[in-house]
């Protein structure tokens, strides 16, 4: 375990020194602040809490942004070291390939968490201080849920990124595949599902099947979790119309996300073990 810890420390320090982690935090904070204030402006003096609006707009932003950052952090982690020659060196040391994957994953997740926490946290605080109405406890609850689930969403795509990084031979291929994966998960998958639904005029596919097909995609699970996190967010996002039997328990959504972290990460370890050095 001390070896994993050594790797975590080294990778975290490495990431913090790379200015782009700082850049990501700043960009996230900037985007979050802009979205929060622009998003809550049209509400005027409605009874809806500005923080709930922020949760809805931020979760839409996260679906695009967080998978991209996570994939960009992860795609290089193994293949980059292989290209520099440091992977060969690392493997000469008494550290197992699974330990390498786990150490890097934890470090990257830590970096991503800092960026999300600081970026979104700044937005939340700014709104809290600028808004006239006071916030209710459940507003904050939704907001904290947003931050935590965004970190989990990041973990999912870090895992997926490691599979790519462990499997391919050069960095440029890994980058291309990462972008492809990102497009599929955040855009093409839902579009494809919509297209199938539109074509399925005779309703061969049951509503239940469509729901589960959608939730297999971790970004959709994330969306579902945050947009139904309170009555207000559900109302704002148009999820309020979802009948009770179509909602999915948070436990199930959590399980889907957890599987999306564990399975790709194990797969990455498996692939790295078989990788010819």
């Amino acid at each position, binding site marked *: 375990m*001390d070896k994993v810890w050594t790797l975590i420390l080294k990778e975290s320090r*490495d990431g913090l*020194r790379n200015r782009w982690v700082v850049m990501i935090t700043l960009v996230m904070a900037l985007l979050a602040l802009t979205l929060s204030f622009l998003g809550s402006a049209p509400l005027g003096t409605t009874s809806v809490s500005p923080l709930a609006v922020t949760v809805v707009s931020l979760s839409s932003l996260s679906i695009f942004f967080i998978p991209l950052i996570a994939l960009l952090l992860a795609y290089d982690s193994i293949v980059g070291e292989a290209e520099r020659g440091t992977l060969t*060196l690392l493997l*000469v040391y*008494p550290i197992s390939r699974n330990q390498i994957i786990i150490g890097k994953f934890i470090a990257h997740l830590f970096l991503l968490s800092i960026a999300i926490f600081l970026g979104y946290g700044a937005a939340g605080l700014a709104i809290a201080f600028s808004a006239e109405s006071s916030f209710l406890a459940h507003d904050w609850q939704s907001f904290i849920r947003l931050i935590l689930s965004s970190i989990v969403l990041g973990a999912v795509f870090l895992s997926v990124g490691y599979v790519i990084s462990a499997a391919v031979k050069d960095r440029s291929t890994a980058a291309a595949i990462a972008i492809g994966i990102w497009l599929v998960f955040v855009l093409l998958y839902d579009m494809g599902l919509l297209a199938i639904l539109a074509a399925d005029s005779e309703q061969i596919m049951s509503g239940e099947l469509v729901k589960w097909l959608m939730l297999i995609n971790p970004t959709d699970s994330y969306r579902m979790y945050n947009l139904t996190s309170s009555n207000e967010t559900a109302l704002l996002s148009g999820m309020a119309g979802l009948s009770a039997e179509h909602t999915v328990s948070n436990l199930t959504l959590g399980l889907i996300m957890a599987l999306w972290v564990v399975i790709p990460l194990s797969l990455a370890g498996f692939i790295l073990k078989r990788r010819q050095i």
Partner: protein
Amino acid sequence: MRIMDNISTIRLDNISKQYGKHFGVRDIDLAIGQGECLALVGHNGAGKTTLIKLVLGFIQPTNGQLSIMGNSPQHANFNRLRKDIGFLPEQVLFQTNMTGREILIFYSRLKNANKAEIEALFERVDLCDAADDKISTYSKGMRQRLGLAQALIGQPKILILDEPTSGLDPLSRQTVYSIIDEVKNAGATVFISSHALTELDDRIDRVAILNQGQLVALGNVDELRENIGLKSIVKISVNQADAGKLIEHFPVFFDGHNEAQNTISLACKGKDKAHLLADILMLGIQLHNIEIYDPSLEQVFMKYTQPNEATQETAVLHG
């Protein structure tokens, strides 16, 4: 030579590694003893890297038995033995945003090595002043020496060096070789892959020559010279009058006469050099100069690896 062959630290028995139909290495038998320094030489693509990867346990042999410190690298327990292996890859690009000290501390922690030795390692590779500088400010030679310091962490029992002196200036090369000597004298097994044949000549115990994946020669350099029939040349400068006398006395050894410079070249087997010199001195002629040229490792290597040479059959001598 300090070879304790009874304890083979690295042992390859009939090892082959096949990639599809192509053999990376083929039927290699090799045992390297404790405290021995063996150089692995061969053309590019001769199988040196494959052999190193096999020894490091990165790839599995298609055939044969491999034992490192008495264990198979494929065995689950081998990971624990890795703390006793030091490795310097041919090219390693450390993270440029880290300092030399940070790099060594990181690798030292992975080996659970004593942190106190890091200072001594910097001293040994002559990087004390640059220890806290970022790698981005290091020259190529400094990076290579840092790589060597990395390989020495934890006082390894096996030191594997892939082209340790490539791109180094003469002074740095000297440092590398004196470190290799120290490590060897401390009882570690040193396994060097190199192209710098002229440098290796008198610094290694044995040489293994690889050609097209096969071990074509194994032994100490003198034995290989002898075996391949390469002769030492003794060049003697004499007075014009004495030149004829010399040729007359040593017709068997006569190899050439440079009349302009009045030098006679005599060729003899390495082991006969001393006798020949004694005989020359016995003649009582005035000698202006004597130069002795032993065949270089480079010549030995070329002879063993050139195609269509009569010496293609494996010459394995046990040193």
